[in-house]
């Protein structure tokens, strides 16, 4: 059993070492949500009226509303970044080293997933600290309560990254696929506007948003920040994580999966 933890420690440690070496990545991960918060949200603040909706018990500013969505955005981008680094690893050969380990492949993939999730969470908390400097502060216990939601959301979006990496043949195809994943996922969600606001312009769009698992990551985080549990969102995220993990394990199965085309 200690071998299993040794592998986990090594894979997660390697992810951290690589992350530390990529200072630009850390900076970009912080600048991106801060730009949304400080520029986009400031602009929209005046035009977008928000009524009191759960979990909020009073009127809130637009900046406060989009913080959970921006936390989820950090998780989303990091999940995709992890996917990109898996494709890079495959192109550079180091994926072979991982896949020829004597440990079960599902465990290796799960460790990879844990590594990318841990890095995501580190980035989210750094973002929350910066947001606090801008005056957007959560209830203090909310900073702790949100952690399980971040872990689950990180795992779900990391699993999505794993699935994508098993489909994407080469690095060059990555940008295109990102456009079809990141943008629709982020914009067709409750990250920027509540679903009732979306329904005002198009009930169909609202329904699409309600089906988008990313919406449920955002809502799970939002409710946990205010010490409440959105059970519907929790179940939706759990189910999506399970399905994505199964597809990822299938995708990386040497006998049946998609690796057959290119390793």
């Amino acid at each position, binding site marked *: 059993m200690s071998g299993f933890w040794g592998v986990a420690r090594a894979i997660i440690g*390697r992810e951290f070492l690589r992350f530390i070496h990529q200072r630009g990545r850390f900076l970009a991960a912080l600048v991106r949500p801060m730009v949304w918060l400080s520029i986009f949200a400031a602009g929209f603040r005046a035009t977008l009226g928000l009524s009191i909706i759960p979990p909020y018990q009073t009127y809130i500013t637009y900046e406060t509303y989009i913080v959970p969505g921006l936390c989820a955005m950090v998780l989303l981008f990091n999940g995709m970044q992890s996917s990109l680094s898996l494709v890079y690893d495959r192109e550079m050969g180091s994926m072979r080293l991982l896949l020829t*380990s*004597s440990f079960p492949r599902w465990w290796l993939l799960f460790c990879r997933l844990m590594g990318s999730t841990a890095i995501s969470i580190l980035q989210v908390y750094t973002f929350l600290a910066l947001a606090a400097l801008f005056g957007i502060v959560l209830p203090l216990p909310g900073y702790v309560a949100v952690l399980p939601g971040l872990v689950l959301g990180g795992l779900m979006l990391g699993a999505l990254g794993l699935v994508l990496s098993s489909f994407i043949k080469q690095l060059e195809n990555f940008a295109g696929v990102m456009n079809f994943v990141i943008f629709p996922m982020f914009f067709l969600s409750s990250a920027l506007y509540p679903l009732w606001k979306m329904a005002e312009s198009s009930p169909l769009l609202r329904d699409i948003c309600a089906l988008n698992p990313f919406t449920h990551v955002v809502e799970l985080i939002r409710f946990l920040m205010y010490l409440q549990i959105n059970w519907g969102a929790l179940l939706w995220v759990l189910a999506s994580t399970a399905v994505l993990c199964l597809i990822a394990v299938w995708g990386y199965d040497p006998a049946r999966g998609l690796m*057959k085309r290119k390793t």
Partner: protein
Amino acid sequence: MPDAQSLEETRQGLIVRDLSFHYGPKTALDAVSFDVAPGTFCALLGPNGAGKSTLVSLLTRLLVAPEGVISVAGHNLLQSPGKALGDLGVVFQQPTLDLGLTVRQNMAYFAALHGVSRRAVPARIDAALDRLGMRDRAGEKVRALNGGHRRRMELARALLHDPKVLLLDEPTVGLDAAARQSITDHVHDLAQQGLCVLWATHLTDEVRDTDQLLVLHQGQILARGQAGELRSADTLSNWFLSQTEVPA
């Protein structure tokens, strides 16, 4: 008829039986069978496109063949992949190093992937690097090493978990003559010390007369035996060309 002892010995090496693999309608390997006993340097010689890389992918479980059996040190790769891969050391044709990490960090990562206990890792790394005269480079980033040293490091790393079978896929590609010679000699020494070695290459000068030789061509084993006996009075290069010539 091989006796029971030699059969048992072979079982501890590499056994491949009736291995076939297809990429869609294209056959990459067609009923390939061979044995490599411990203490043997077996050169797998084949021109480009012969199926060597597919065979290496199958032997390392990056691919799984629907037909055939692979046994590594007595462990069936399909039924006990963990044990089989645990007894297999691999040097891939394409480098598999993290250039941004040090030699020691790269090796420690690999050791963990093969379940080497954390306490044993530093001593194992030192011993493996000592064998290849690279101990003093342990703290350097891999990016700073030249091609020959990177390859030696990969070889040292492949031996870190004490494998019984060593698989090398064109390990000297891109190296200068001295580095090629050094690595080829070292692996021959390892075979003499009892390791089972399968060395895939298309370069005939890496093969010695005493080596076991398999010629792979268009997915099939074309010839097998001791290299010196197979080439007879001819040079190995000419003999290999004559065997793998495709009529115009």
